[in-house]
């Protein structure tokens, strides 16, 4: 890589880090300021809604199979159903995910 490419790489790395860091610092200071002013230190409501909806959106985008054919969608549906079924029984993280991946893999391999 030449110098200009390194410069681009460093700019992206620093920029990405600051995108993650600065909003955190801003909110931390904002919460601390509200507490010192004897207000209840709480986040803006829109932010508390955006957190779960971002996770739901990540779930949606990750759900779309790489090969968008009927079998892949079927495997995805079965995988999620099995994940949900095991989750309703265990209310844990590891086992439902493992069972979901195995079910997804079995449908992919068998058909």
């Amino acid at each position, binding site marked *: 890589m030449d110098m200009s490419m390194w410069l681009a790489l460093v700019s992206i790395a620093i920029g990405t880090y600051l995108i993650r860091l600065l909003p955190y610092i801003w909110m931390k200071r904002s919460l601390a300021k509200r507490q010192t002013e004897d207000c209840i230190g709480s986040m803006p409501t829109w932010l508390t809604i955006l*957190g779960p*909806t*971002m996770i739901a959106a*990540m779930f949606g985008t990750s759900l779309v199979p790489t090969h968008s054919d009927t079998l892949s969608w079927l495997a995805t549906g079965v995988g999620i159903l099995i994940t949900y079924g095991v989750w309703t029984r265990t209310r844990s*993280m590891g086992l439902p995910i493992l069972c979901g*991946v195995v079910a997804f893999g079995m449908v992919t391999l068998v058909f």
Partner: protein
Amino acid sequence: MSTTTQTLAGTPWKQGVKDAIPLLGGYIPVAISFGLISVQSGFSVLETILISAFIYAGASQFLFVAMAASGAPLWFVVIMTLLINARHVVYGPNLSPYLNQDKKWLPLMHGLTDQIFALAHARLPQLPDQARIGWYTGAAVLAWLSWIAGTALGAIAGGELTQRWPLINDVLPFALPALFFVLIVPRCNNRLWTLTIALSAVSAVILKVLGFPNVAIPLAALCGAALFYALKNQRNMGGQ
């Protein structure tokens, strides 16, 4: 997400590592693909590993090597890759109520990816205050190292690996939607949140299928948030 505080069986960082293990199913295959594509685009193995270590953001890394290889102006490459990561601005503020004043949180923000945010948003409220930094360190460092290791593997032997074990690419990535699902499903405990979550997820699927993968997450999240406010206003007006 439940806010019941849980006691930990082991040390917090070990619990963080354990909770982050499902992420590897999604991280490693994508990192292998990135390593392979980066080397094929003309970057060396070391450069490829450094890109993963320091940028550490999947979509923008793929865009970086693709645009750089195509000879796009570098200022444009920088802007586009940062725009893709703009969705990360809501992650830190959402976690900040659960993080203490420890200065170690500042470097740890490098590890705040989509998946670590989703995991931390669900798990941090359940942990005692003093265990949170250890838990986050374990989860984030495991994810980061797996991303770097997967990239190295892809850069060195990616072609052979994916030919010999195609399951790495075909089956393991399903761990990611399964992980997001178990993180978000406890939120669906009333009609308002169930509809909000469902609309966000369905919008994201539609946007990605239509060919807009990079704007799918923020746009779908905004759709869900808009529905949340609409339903809440409707309920408030009905109650008056």
